[in-house]
């Protein structure tokens, strides 16, 4: 089975009163392949946590189905293949780190001796070996999140589901968690994680899905979203002397660049050679030519805007 996560028209409707319904997830179709690092992104309230809760069996779908390695999400067999980290750490705070890890690990039928070895291994991986005997309540927020990853890894699961793993952490904490995820990526674990931090997703993920108001707007390989903004290029060049108005006019450059030694402009690909020739004639020096790449942020905002436009029309 090459598919780690598959959802078919997954739907979740929260019914509060007779007249108050909230459609948190609307026919979500998702496919995450084994070995993928899938970033599930969307603004707050988009339905990310709802989808994750459905995958882990914490809530029941109103419609549709979800499968984890071919097993129905929420079933015992599906849960055996998942390591789950919730958005905020909720653990028995009166317990010690190793005792709680033993406790969580025992549900996977791992023998005590094997668990001991595994606990040492994962605590080393998340860099909290020295906290093995600390009580959960004495851990800092960053440590707690690392513990969260450790408890998710206790059974050595082929799939990790992380709900906003860097949420509420300071930049150092965020970096540490990001590094741990990258380490796990190298180990070949399939990771499905939700976030609204686009740079984080850009750094870590191979594939992404963008969700907004319960609907999946798009999904695919990260590269597709970062493709070149055809056919524009960013050209950086410098003059040995501040350019006069005449030179600027010759080059079709705005007058505001007068007296600037260093200039940066965007040119169309077809005009590039001609423009460079003109620059050379003016003794300008080319510093760099970089194709304009659309960032994930661009894609994200365009899709969200488009989605909202469609909704209002």
């Amino acid at each position, binding site marked *: 089975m090459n598919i780690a996560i598959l959802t078919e028209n997954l739907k979740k409707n*929260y019914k509060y009163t007779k007249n108050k319904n909230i459609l948190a997830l609307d026919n979500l179709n998702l496919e995450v392949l084994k070995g993928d690092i899938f970033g599930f992104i969307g603004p707050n309230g988009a339905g990310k946590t709802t989808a994750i*809760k459905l995958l*882990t*069996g*914490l*809530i*029941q779908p109103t419609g549709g189905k979800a499968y984890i390695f071919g097993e129905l999400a929420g079933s*015992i067999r599906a*849960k*055996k293949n*998942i390591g*789950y980290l*919730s958005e*905020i750490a*909720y*653990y*028995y705070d*009166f*317990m010690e780190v190793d005792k709680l890890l033993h*406790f*969580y690990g*025992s*549900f*996977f039928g791992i023998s005590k001796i094997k668990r001991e070895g595994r606990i040492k291994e994962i605590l080393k991986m998340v860099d909290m070996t020295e906290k093995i005997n600390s009580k959960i309540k004495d851990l800092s927020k960053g440590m707690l999140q690392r513990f*969260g990853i450790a*408890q998710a890894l206790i059974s050595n699961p082929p799939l990790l589901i992380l709900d906003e793993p860097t949420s509420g952490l300071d930049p150092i904490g965020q970096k540490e968690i990001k590094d741990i995820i990258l380490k796990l990526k190298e180990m070949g674990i399939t990771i499905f994680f939700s976030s609204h931090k686009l740079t984080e997703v850009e750094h870590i993920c191979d594939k992404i899905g963008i969700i907004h108001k319960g609907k999946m707007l798009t999904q695919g390989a990260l590269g597709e979203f970062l493709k070149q903004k055809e056919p524009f290029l960013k050209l950086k060049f410098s003059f040995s002397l501040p350019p006069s108005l005449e030179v600027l006019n010759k080059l079709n450059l705005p007058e505001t660049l007068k007296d600037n030694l260093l200039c940066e402009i965007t040119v169309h690909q077809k005009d590039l050679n001609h423009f460079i020739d003109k620059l050379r004639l003016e003794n300008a020096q080319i510093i760099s030519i970089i194709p304009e790449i659309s960032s994930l942020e661009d894609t994200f905002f365009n899709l969200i805007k488009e989605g909202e436009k469609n909704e209002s029309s």
Partner: protein
Amino acid sequence: MNLLNILRVASITAEKSLRQKILYLIFFFGLVLIALSNFLNVFGLGAQIRLIKDFSLTGINLFGLIFTIAIYLNSIPNEIEQKTIYPLLAKPLRRSEYVWGKFLGNYYLIFLNMLILAVELFLILKLNTNIYYFNVFNCIFLYFIQCGVVGAMVLAFSTRISYPLTLSLTLFAYIIGGFSSVYIQYLAAQPENQIGVFIIKIIKDIIPHFDYFNIKNSVVHDYIIEPKYLPMTAFYGITYIWLFIILAEMSLRNKDL
């Protein structure tokens, strides 16, 4: 169902519940009340022993029930509210195993609480009379089963409804269920109360007959209890416990967390 999973949840439940200071307070009051009964000496030794038994058994029943309600009332709602249930139920653990674990973990603490109180009463009686009053254990055993029924009922209610409503419903059920059949017959004989009596009769038919678990009078007066009575009543209570746990399980099964 995986028995080991149930025991795992039970053990952490007991450990967690032991952190509730209110339980120590209830236990302490029970302990003091029984100790105080030793000083009830008004009508001579025979009457004093009956008084000690009556007073102490009433205390064990009362504090046992308070302890039971206090321990079960927030047991599952707290885990849902504090979200400690998330990492747990994301593991290969069935919700039914979770509910049974919650029930048994707390029931174990109730057992310890009642055992200590029972031994205290037994020793007081022994010190006063030099006689072993083993029959007090029969009465306390049925109180223990009764606490299980009340606890399972609280667990079933608390998974769906709010804490004040759970408390009110439990107390209502306990009071109606505690009406003796003789009292219901007496009420039925009053012509002006017919509708009320009819409703009470129906409710009493559904909810457990808590009066069955109370053999205090027989124990206080050293009446002989039919040998079959204890196992039959225990079986009756365990059946209700099972039914309420099934109810709790069903209500938690489809609950969105």
